[in-house]
């Protein structure tokens, strides 16, 4: 016996998307063929899960090449800042261009074009981010943190923290601890 099938690709793809998105519990709206608007921002785990699940059907989330390179720049910087085992003996611009195989000028322009920010700025944000983690989760003093992050002095770290966030490291710590207290009280009263 032979069957002749007629496919309506539009319906097929819609149905696949619907099933995959529902399975992962992601809310979305269809904007047109091949375009989707998400109601809520995805975490990178959710994004990866979605990507993997769509791949089985030959559906690929389109990313452009420039964004991918920018992502690599960010990964390298984050590794430089957060991972103490990554020993960077050279200037960070040299390190970046050596690791990624492009000139620093090219990387820097591309980065600014895509992220509306600069590599230097991104590096500062990451360092401050790391110092926030250390302030909250370790017993290290600010002086020790400054040393760990290669700041020339504790004053330099404090100033950069204040310039980047608008608040001082100690005010930051106080606010987050108060938030934690409130969250704690909430769970206790449940």
């Amino acid at each position, binding site marked *: 016996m032979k069957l002749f099938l007629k496919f309506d690709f539009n319906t097929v793809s819609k149905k696949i998307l619907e099933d995959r998105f529902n399975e992962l519990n992601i*809310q979305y*709206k269809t904007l047109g063929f091949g375009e989707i*608007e*998400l*109601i*809520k*921002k*995805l*975490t*990178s785990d959710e*994004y990866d899960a979605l990507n993997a699940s769509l791949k089985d059907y030959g559906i690929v*989330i389109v*990313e452009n090449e420039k*964004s991918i390179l920018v*992502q690599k720049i*960010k990964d390298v910087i*984050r590794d430089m800042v957060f991972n103490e085992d990554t020993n960077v003996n050279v200037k960070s611009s040299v390190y970046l261009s050596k690791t990624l195989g492009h000139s620093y000028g090219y990387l820097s322009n591309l980065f600014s074009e895509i*992220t*509306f*920010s600069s590599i230097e700025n*991104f590096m500062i*944000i990451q360092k401050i*981010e790391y110092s*926030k*983690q250390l302030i*909250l989760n370790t017993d290290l003093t600010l002086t020790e943190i400054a040393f760990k992050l290669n700041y020339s002095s504790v004053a330099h770290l404090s100033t950069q923290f204040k310039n*980047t*966030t*608008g*608040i001082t490291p100690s*005010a*930051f710590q*106080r*606010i*987050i601890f*108060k*938030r934690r207290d*409130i969250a704690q009280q909430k769970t206790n009263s449940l």
Partner: protein
Amino acid sequence: MQNDYIHLILADDDEDDRLFFTDAFSELKINTRVNTFNDGVELMNYLNKEGSLMPNVLFLDLNMPKKTGIECLIEIKNNEKMSGIAIVIYSTSASEEDIEKTFVLGANIYIKKPDSFNKLKKILSEVVSINWQYHTNGLNKDNFLLRL
């Protein structure tokens, strides 16, 4: 990563402030989509409605009729669906007490309304670009505090 514009919402009862706000964004390089609401009740109705697009950044005036910015802030922080929204307090008050209180309640950014349009543009552009860093880089939102 996934979308190339930022969705912003402003809740403010002052019409001039709303106008300055939308104008400032239309002159920035970053692609934005701006919605405004006249008070806290309108805002919360929108956010609670099924299928509403959640903004990436929400600007809240503190002094609004019917529902204040603080009340909105508390409601939003207690709602899982709205957990991804970065909250900016946008107020004329510069009292240290207000500032710390809103931060403790979960606000991410505190902006004192500037007195000139150019300053406003500069500040808003800074907020949007730093927030962009946060949501494209998986930085820890719980630790995101900024005062301008």
